[in-house]
């Protein structure tokens, strides 16, 4: 009734807002706002761990809201909301779940890190939650403008987070680099939106798709340029070659929990946008973008894997390997079939657990000052911290794609999709690069297990920075929260690689069915 009146009476049509489908990310926005308000009103110093606990609770609530939404979508199928600005479908809920998990893990990693580095405060948690809500918005966006909003919410919070360890020059440098290049890519993305709008007359994804299905554009230069710019803008966020140059420096310089969060949430958000735009909106232009994605995927795989081989800094190595992992997700995109899409989803979910688990270990080994990230700092870790070394080994082997881990199934699935769509060359390159990647993951394992440990147990590479000395005792302590994160991610990595593979596959497949 009110809608009708609005249409008749006023020029501005206010869409009906369905809060229920926005719950998972509204919870996080709300959490961030409450956190900031409370901590500025209450002058008392919050008890240790309470802020992280608060964030974990909100992450869990977001997870539960996603679960409820999933049931809803499962029953009634996908639907658009808020005047077609966002869409509530299995695909978006899948990313809600994924991003909510990164929030929980980032909180678990953040708490001991911030206290160790004396950076404690509510800002980190608020920014993480805001950034995550941006990633979720990207996943649920049904309109290029909304997608852009999500991208910016995600990115701006991340720029700040990258420079969060403000006493470290590397951290400030990372923030600056990420900001400048990120802003540049946002601009390209925006320009791409403008061109696509010019070519099709809409920014709404379904309308663009409908337009492209009904019309044959003979001179489609503008459209293709717009599409290419969208690819560049999002390719930047997911660190696809040749838009990857920021990755190593930013991953290395950012505070370790932020790096983990970045690898999980930012990649997820970027891929959510990428997959939705190319799978649904530009589906009819498949023959135009498939070769492009093919080339980018091969470049990403090769550059990421090969350059990771020569890295001596663990965070740089993981940065390059994250580039390579983006390549595998692109393999799923390039396949342009249902299996490719669900493979990409499965890959992103499992990768999030693997990489955040890895960074949890890196965080511990990094010691106070967050600087002991040289490969030598892992020398003899197995002797000193056998369980930590074992966990790291599992994460590394999972990333290398060794069977009985979730990482193997993920690779198996996307490469299966490539084979199904007859992209044999891409599949073979991907598998060969996975063998190459075995080399640099094993280098770390060699360091941990086979290199003689140094007797001092003290940090070697950690040239103390910003006046922070390495821990006096030199003994590595694993904080409870980090331990919990490691156990959680480890359990996921192993269980999904074996017995729980089926439910998670079903989750990804169903998400694609409800796309």
């Amino acid at each position, binding site marked *: 009734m009110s809608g009708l009146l609005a249409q008749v009476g006023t020029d501005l049509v206010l869409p009906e807002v369905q809060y229920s489908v926005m719950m998972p990310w509204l919870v996080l926005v709300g959490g961030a706002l409450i956190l900031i308000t409370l901590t500025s009103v209450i002058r008392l110093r919050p008890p240790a761990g309470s802020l992280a606990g608060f964030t974990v609770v909100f992450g869990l609530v977001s997870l539960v809201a996603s679960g409820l939404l999933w049931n809803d979508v499962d029953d009634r199928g996908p639907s658009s909301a808020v005047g077609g600005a966002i869409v509530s479908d299995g695909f978006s809920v899948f990313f809600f779940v994924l991003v909510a998990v990164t929030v929980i893990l980032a909180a678990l990693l953040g708490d001991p890190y911030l206290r160790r580095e004396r950076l404690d405060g509510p800002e980190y948690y608020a920014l993480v939650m805001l950034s995550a809500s941006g990633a979720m918005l990207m996943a649920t966006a049904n309109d290029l403008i909304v997608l852009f909003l999500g991208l910016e919410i995600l990115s701006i919070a991340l720029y700040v987070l990258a420079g969060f360890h403000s006493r470290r020059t590397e951290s400030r440098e990372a923030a600056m680099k990420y900001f400048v290049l990120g802003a540049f890519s946002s601009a390209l993305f925006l320009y791409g939106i403008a061109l696509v709008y010019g070519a099709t007359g809409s920014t709404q994804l379904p309308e663009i798709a409908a337009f492209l299905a009904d019309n044959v554009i003979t001179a489609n230069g503008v459209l293709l340029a717009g599409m290419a710019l969208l690819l560049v803008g999002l390719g930047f966020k997911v660190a696809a070659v040749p838009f990857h140059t920021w990755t190593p420096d930013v991953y290395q310089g950012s505070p370790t929990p932020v790096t983990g969060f970045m690898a999980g949430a930012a990649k997820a958000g970027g891929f959510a946008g990428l997959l939705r735009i190319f799978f649904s909106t530009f589906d009819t232009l498949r023959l135009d973008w498939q070769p492009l994605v093919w080339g980018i995927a091969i470049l990403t795989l090769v550059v990421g894997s090969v350059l990771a081989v020569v890295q001596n800094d663990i965070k740089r190595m993981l940065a390059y390997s994250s580039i390579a992992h983006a390549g595998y997700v692109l393999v799923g995109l390039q396949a342009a079939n249902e299996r490719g899409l669900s493979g990409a989803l499965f890959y992103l979910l499992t990768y999030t657990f693997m990489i955040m688990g890895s960074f949890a270990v890196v965080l511990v080994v990094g010691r106070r000052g967050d600087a002991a990230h040289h490969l030598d700092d892992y020398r003899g870790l197995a002797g000193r911290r056998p369980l930590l070394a074992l966990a790291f080994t599992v994460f590394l*082997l999972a990333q*290398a794609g*060794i*069977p*009985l*881990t979730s990482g*193997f*199934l993920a690779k*198996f*699935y996307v*490469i*299966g999709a490539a*084979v*199904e769509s007859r992209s*044999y060359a891409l*599949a*073979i390159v991907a*598998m*060969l690069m*996975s*063998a190459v990647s*075995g*080399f640099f993951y*094993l280098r770390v394992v*060699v360091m941990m*297990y*086979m290199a003689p440990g140094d007797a001092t147990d003290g940090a070697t590479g950690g040239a103390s920075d910003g006046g922070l000395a390495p821990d006096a005792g030199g003994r590595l302590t694993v904080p409870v929260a980090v331990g919990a994160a490691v156990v959680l991610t480890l359990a996921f990595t*192993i*269980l999904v*690689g*074996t*017995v729980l*593979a*089926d439910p998670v*596959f*079903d989750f990804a*497949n169903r998400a694609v069915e409800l796309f």
Partner: protein
Amino acid sequence: MTGLIAPGLLAVAEEAGSGTAGFPLLTSLVLLPLFGALAVALVPSVRTEVSRVVGITVAVATTVLAVVLALQFDTGEPGFQFVSQHQWIASLGISWKLGVDGISLWLVVLTAILFPLALAGPVVHHDEKSYTAWLLVLEAGCIGVFLALDLFLFFVFFEVVLVPMYFLIGGWGYEQRVYAALKFFLYTLAGSALMLVGMLALAFLNQRATGELTFDVERLAESQSITAAASRWIFLAFTVAFAVKVPLFPLHTWLPDAHTQAPTAGSVILAGVMLKLGTYGFVRFGLYLFPQAAVDLAPLLLTLATIGILYGAVVATVQRDLKRLIAYSSVAHLGFIVLGTFALTTQGLTGGVIQMVNHGISTGALFLLVGMIYERRHTREIGELNGLQKAAPVMAVVFTIIMLSSVGLPLLNGFVGEFMILLGTFVTRRWWAVAATAGVILSALYLLWAYQRVFHGTPTGENATMPDMTIRERVVMAPLVLLVIVLGVYPRPVLDRIEPSVDALLGHVEEKTGYRQPAVAAGGGGEERESPDPEPGPGGSPEGPEEEAAGEAGR
């Protein structure tokens, strides 16, 4: 690794619940060593000697299970037995499917016999606990490879065995261990990368043709729905993976390093069991899944195998390092197995299968012996050893027997397989067989020459005072020596179980391709099965040629 336990446990629970399959023998064979590894890992670090005892006990228990399997095995039944199947990943048509036939049966038994010996034999100098645990994980993986009847499951086991072996070489090996471990790991990983793509291509092309997505080996073999060209490419992809494992010339360069640098137990398992993953792969997956491609590309593989035989033998001759010499001899011996496999005759293939077992026993034993020498003399250089016969007569006798079996002396096990392979190959591929026979002569040359330099002569220096084999070492070597003799004199029971499956496999190849093996090669087996008199076995019946070959080998 621990993850494997869970699906297996489900399988056990289901089988126990259904009550139809009875005791899940095969699943238990995979799980028992895994549980053992877990148990070992839980032993407190201060009591490492307990972990060794636990490990050996578990390995012996696995041997008992394998023997039970062999005893309950239905002789004359060509198909898969004790099959146990449970869905694993439904959306991809992947299941936990294990089964055993005449081809895999003896490899499982061999694995189960070699592991306790490898565990008990060599001395471990540090961290016995992890060492034992890794070996048991490796055992589970190896048995899994031989039993898997689902391509995906096979691939999982095939790759998983790399991890424990990598740690064994890298953690307990000799000077160049890290390099060797890495080389071994990456070589194999790169090889299996192609196989994975091939596997997926096979499954999806089959799905396109039949509408069913499955990784079930039997189903895929039966349907043969993919085009000849596709199957040739996929066969090649599999071939690369297996050729690295075997290893076939020119993909063998990881082997000398890995074998030489690995700790004794590692070398025993590498040579004894893990090389067979490749040859077994050729038989089970190469021939069974891609009969036409295997027939078409047989000349290529035969040629590579023959080059491997000659090259391995020649290079072995000039080695100064005893362990490296045996490593190269493996290249040659495994070449024989591939030769027999792709001769595509009953005799050749049966010979290939039994030779896998025989090579495992002989070479495993040789590596154990070299390990014993190294423990005493701290060198593997042939030049620094001499006259050991005087100081260690018992070891000299054992070494002689094992070495002669490796050379292929009649009445010892090595002869049976080698002879059948050459016979089977000669019928269809005369010139390859002729060339390969030269390898037999060369093997006698390098092994006898090495023996002569190490054991004969007057001992000098430390060689004069080297202690002889201890009781423990004698106990470890006894079963191997016994097997060498028993299998050499009376291989009948083993062959009886292999042949029906080999016949069935070749029948499958003939049915799907129109290839016909010459009656001479196939007939031998058929006649003998009809004759009630068990005496003239394929290993013993052709008396004349046997002596000829023996003479050749002895020269």
